[in-house]
């Protein structure tokens, strides 16, 4: 059952990821990415990470992608006629790295060290609940990285305001 669900989610994720980079209109790319985010969230539920799945939908699909769609519609860009002229090189390089990595992975005996039998004994996270376990780790062990993350968000906010505001350096003021 889990394998069937995984296969469905994986197939849709790969298909929509290809749709993101292949479709000519940016709006179609963004909507394909939306479908992909929902299926990645489904994969997270499959992995017993319910809270992360909810955050994935709320933050990625609800906030980040809406921002993308907003900018796409604001700029009203035309559809591309073709890909970049390094299309063939990019494709060959990407596929070569992919094949190499899959080869390395399949020969490393990596899968034997993580046998597919999970939760022989119910873990601590499963007993006290996923959200509680994450909160406990986030606010005790990872408190300092958490504060640094808030600083990153502050810097991003200030940077976006400064970059997008017209005439904040006084030079463009005359053009109005």
């Amino acid at each position: 059952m889990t394998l069937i669900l995984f296969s469905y989610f994986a197939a849709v994720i790969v298909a929509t990821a290809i749709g993101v980079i292949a479709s000519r209109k940016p709006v179609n790319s963004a909507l394909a990415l939306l479908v992909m985010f929902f299926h990645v969230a489904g994969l997270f539920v499959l992995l017993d990470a319910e809270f992360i799945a909810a955050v994935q939908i709320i933050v990625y699909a609800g906030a980040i992608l809406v921002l993308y769609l907003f900018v796409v519609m604001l700029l009203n860009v035309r559809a591309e006629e073709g890909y970049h002229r390094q299309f063939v090189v990019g494709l060959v390089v990407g596929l070569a790295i992919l094949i190499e990595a899959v080869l390395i992975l399949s020969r490393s005996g990596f899968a034997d060290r993580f046998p597919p039998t999970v939760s022989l004994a119910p873990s601590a996270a499963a007993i006290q609940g996923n959200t509680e376990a994450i909160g406990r780790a986030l606010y005790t062990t990872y408190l300092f990285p958490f504060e640094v993350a808030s600083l990153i968000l502050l810097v991003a906010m200030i940077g976006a305001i400064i970059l997008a505001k017209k005439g904040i350096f006084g030079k463009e003021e005359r053009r109005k």
Partner: protein
Amino acid sequence: MVPLSYYVILSLIVFMIGVIGVLIRRNIIVILLSIELMLNAANINFVAFSHYLQNVTGQVFVFFVLTVAAAEVVVGLAIIIALYRGKSTIHVEDVNRMKW
């Protein structure tokens, strides 16, 4: 049950699709979307390892990836808007002033 290597290979495929997208597309917005693909591939890996090692740390790291993704999107889109205002294009080969 699904072996861990399936998840790793899935995230590898998604990551490489993102890399190919960055290399072949001309629209800067789609290039940023490809970067989102790569970040999501990393998230799949984090959560899969967190599940198989029975350790919640991987899921905490997804939060930090999410924070960085949000910051990257906000700054990137602000740069795109500033670029479009100045040059009326968001195609990468039209923006080559800093190329030697």
